[in-house]
């Protein structure tokens, strides 16, 4: 059951020593944080590790949250920096087989996500898969804009960019998504015929 307390009230309770309040905060934001982490990590295990790390980091720095912006905006900025660090580390750790690994992870992720074939073939499935194939930054912007209910200014704050840059990136990401969806659906229709 989700608490009716606001994020700020839960933060105040956490800072007063009530760890249960922080557990409610985690439950409230975990799906979104995990989805954002998946945009960078591709594999569920890595994404879960990033998401957990984000919540632990946020807990440690909770006293520094100034309550001027939304808690979600602050939390997403932690997700962004943590995910970027993960990507940088991964790039250093892996060699040329990296692309192949990502491809395998993508395949595993997609197949493990849902075994229902009918649902997999739904339009929503293709949109999700197209988002996963975007560059991490673009996928994050799309997710923050459509699912995080974040304005362009808030996304800019989260990602440390200009609002105008975010607007341009959002436009390009939507263009790419549209093209990918058209290509995929054309291919699917051909297969059906």
């Amino acid at each position, binding site marked *: 059951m989700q608490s009716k307390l606001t994020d700020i009230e839960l933060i105040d309770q956490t800072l007063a020593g009530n760890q249960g309040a922080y557990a409610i905060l985690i439950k409230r934001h975990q*799906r979104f944080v995990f989805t954002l982490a998946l945009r960078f990590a591709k594999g569920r295990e890595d994404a*879960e590790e990033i998401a957990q790390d984000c*919540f*632990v980091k946020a807990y440690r720095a909770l006293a520094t949250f100034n309550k001027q912006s939304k808690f979600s905006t602050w939390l997403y900025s932690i997700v962004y920096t943590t995910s970027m660090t993960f990507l940088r580390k991964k790039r250093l750790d892996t060699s040329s087989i990296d692309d192949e690994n990502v491809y395998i992870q993508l395949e595993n992720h997609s197949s493990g996500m849902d075994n229902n074939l009918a649902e997999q073939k739904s339009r929503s499935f293709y*949109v999700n898969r197209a988002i996963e194939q975007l560059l991490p930054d673009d996928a994050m912007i*799309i997710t923050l804009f*459509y699912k995080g209910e974040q304005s362009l200014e808030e996304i800019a704050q989260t990602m440390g960019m200009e609002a105008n840059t975010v607007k341009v990136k959002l436009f390009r990401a939507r*263009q790419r*998504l549209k093209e990918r969806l058209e290509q995929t659906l054309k291919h699917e229709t051909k297969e059906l015929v």
Partner: protein
Amino acid sequence: MNAIEEKLWDYIDGTCSAEERESIGKLIAGDAVYQKKYRELLALNAEFLAVELDEPSMAFTYNVMETIRTENAMQPLKARVDKRIIRGLGVFFALTIGILLVYVLTQVNWSAENTIPVQFDFTLPKIPDYLNGNVLMAFIFVDIIVALYLFDSYLRKKLTHKTAH
């Protein structure tokens, strides 16, 4: 086509000004190309909005809380000292010093008549008498020992730093 799409996305997102909104609205109503593109983008927008969020594992919250609990338990006592205790100690010492100061000041007799005359009769020792050859030799010898000791510790530190990297 990109310019049309850009305008239409601004219209859909509500990021354009009221005047722009009005003019784009008119274009959608009157221009077939705009109308077709608008419908297309609106459908795409609905699809983006319908994308479902992924769900982490069931134990996600538990795992995070467990990590936090373990970290808190491992925190050294030095870092867990309550700030209120420090403040309390500060107030205690400040009060004690203040009370002592007030007490001492009230005990002082400020009248000049009771001043006790202090008589100093101090003559400096004759230093050149002590500075003979043996003393100087001993002094130089100690200096050399200290210099060698310092040089040795500097070399040791340098060596340790080198092996650590």
